[in-house]
């Protein structure tokens, strides 16, 4: 009798090293680390005078941070910029919502054509679009010329607040950001489960009630995302204010640029202002991310 040898256990399969994920993630993460995290870390070091481009005394100090928080001027300027950005964001969202609503829910077959029209201004240069407003808003621009032609305004006394003012910055920023705002709201409304609206109607809700209690709450993540989408970049805006803002439209972003590059370089204070802005923006992004994670509601 031959003994049957117990079956040999299967040879363990050699575990293959899966490099797909590290390869896919490595490049973008490396890119971020080198060109985003490292520069921010350097700017942070500048703000504490640990690192400096210029010869002179170096060493860790909180002086620039202390001066920043003690300075009513910089914080006031930051608050002024927050107010301006908030006004821009709220008005842009208010104007974009009906537009996005029409495109997403009207059932028009040409909605993507309209959407293309909405983003058509992006085909021209940002600078060109902003500069065009100078032609419209100047003392002898389109608006003032029209007002004097109709006799509403004396030609010798045009509305000078239209250009080189805070108003001009807000107006131009709204114009520039409107398409950006409309897109996330459009996506949010486009993904809305239409059966919820039918159910609301079946249950006796009027069109306004259905909008107020169903459409608006469900599109809020898109609205909030759009709000932050505008607020965050406009808070550090400096191109538009430098073109149409004049002395009164000067914003926090302009101050950062000027501290780094005009007069006499003050990279330490400039870095403090930049890091403070970054901190505020990061906080806002965390908040906006929470809204974006809101669960989708369906009729199922």
């Amino acid at each position, binding site marked *: 009798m031959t003994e049957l040898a117990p079956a040999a256990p299967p040879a363990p399969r050699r575990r293959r090293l899966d490099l797909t994920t590290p390869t896919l993630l490595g490049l973008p993460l490396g890119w971020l680390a080198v060109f985003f995290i490292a520069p921010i870390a350097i700017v942070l070091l500048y703000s504490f005078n640990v690192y400096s481009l210029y010869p002179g005394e170096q060493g860790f100090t909180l002086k620039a941070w202390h001066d920043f928080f003690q300075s009513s001027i910089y914080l*006031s300027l930051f608050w002024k910029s927050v107010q301006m950005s908030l006004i821009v964001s709220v008005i842009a969202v208010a104007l974009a919502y009906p537009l996005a609503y029409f495109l997403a829910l009207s059932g028009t077959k040409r909605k993507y054509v309209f959407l293309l029209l909405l983003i058509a201004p992006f085909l021209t240069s940002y600078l060109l679009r902003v500069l065009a407003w100078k032609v419209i808003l100047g003392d002898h621009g389109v608006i003032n010329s029209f007002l004097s032609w109709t006799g509403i305004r004396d030609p010798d006394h045009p509305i*000078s607040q239209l250009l080189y003012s805070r108003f001009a910055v807000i107006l131009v920023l709204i114009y520039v950001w409107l398409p950006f705002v409309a897109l996330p709201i459009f996506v949010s409304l486009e993904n809305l489960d239409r059966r919820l609206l039918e159910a609301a109607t079946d249950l006796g809700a009027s069109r306004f009630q259905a909008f107020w209690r169903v459409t608006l709450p469900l599109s809020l993540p898109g609205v909030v995302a759009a709000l932050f989408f505008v607020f965050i970049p406009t808070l550090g805006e400096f191109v538009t204010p*430098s073109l149409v803002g004049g002395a009164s439209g000067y914003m926090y972003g302009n101050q950062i640029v000027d501290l780094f590059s005009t007069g006499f370089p003050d990279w330490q204070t400039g870095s403090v202002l930049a890091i403070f802005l970054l901190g505020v923006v990061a906080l806002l992004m965390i908040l906006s991310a929470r809204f974006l994670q809101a669960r989708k509601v369906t009729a199922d």
Partner: protein
Amino acid sequence: MSDGDGLPERQLSRDRFLRIAAAAGGAVLLPGVAAEAAGALATESGRLQVLDWAGYGNDGGQDMFAQYVKKYPSNKPQFTVMGNESDALAKLHAGLKPDLFRPYVGWVKYFATSGLVQPWNPKLISNFKQLNPFMVKAGQHNGKQYGIPADWGFDAILYRTDKVKPKSRSWGLIFDDRYKGRISWFDDLNMITLAGLYLGFPRPWRQTDEQLKRSQDLLIKKKKNVRLIWSSEPNLWEAFGSGDLWIAYAWPNDWVQMKKKKLKVAYMRPKEKPIAWVGMFMLLKGTSRSKLAHAYVDAWSSAKSGKWLEDNYGYGHANTRARPTSSDLLRALQLTNLRAVTEPNAYLDRDIPRRALYARTWEEVKAS
């Protein structure tokens, strides 16, 4: 590097050979200058690296250095743009290695003592003797010629004569409450100096803390009258030319440009005196193209280049023989008077020992 180093590495073209032969031949007659020129050809190679303002390189300013390019076609200048002196300083510290650059006169002492630059040898600049002696003097530090004067102009007041009735010939016009929303300042820490001049401080470039506070308070208080703080001339021309502005801190060329637009304008020299600014070429320490840099500045310093600059850019030129075609510019710059840039006519801009504090003070004015 000894004379002759690097020569074997380069192939001598026929053109190049003839030029060296000419220089060598000329050396019999003009031993010093020709020998220097021949030496330059023998020892210095590569393109001349120039750190200069926009508009002075191959983007429109070619006529200023055409003579240099003609003479040294193998060493054509290569330009890096500087936004201002602060930007240039950052670039130099960040590792840029130009052979020469052009800050303005108020920075001469700062750079001369920074260890970044070295003095020029005026003997290598044939046009040097034609340069305005007051500007030449302003380019010196400890008796050495660190700056070679180039372009220049005034900081004074441009205003619309049909809209503005000045109470007096004073810097006070750019603070005048009657013209709220029609005034433009210049985005520069010189605004602090100017406020000091207006307030009657004896040394506005060396204000005490208390004086700086008073200058800043004045500027913050009067900023409500200001519509635009300009940072580039086209920016000013557009706003002033379209009628948005009536009064501006401006340069002579701005007056000429507005006159060309048929505006009724005057260029006021305030009783507190205008401030004269002068562009100064500075030679970087350790440059390997020192003689080429001298040749480049020599080309810039000629009367021909000067006239071109005056006719095309509207700035004055340090070469006293340069004369613009425009009689308006001739008058605005007072080109027939060598002393126009200095007292008793004007203050030549000068070193500000506490420049960083001045800059911070001005930034706070803008932010307020």
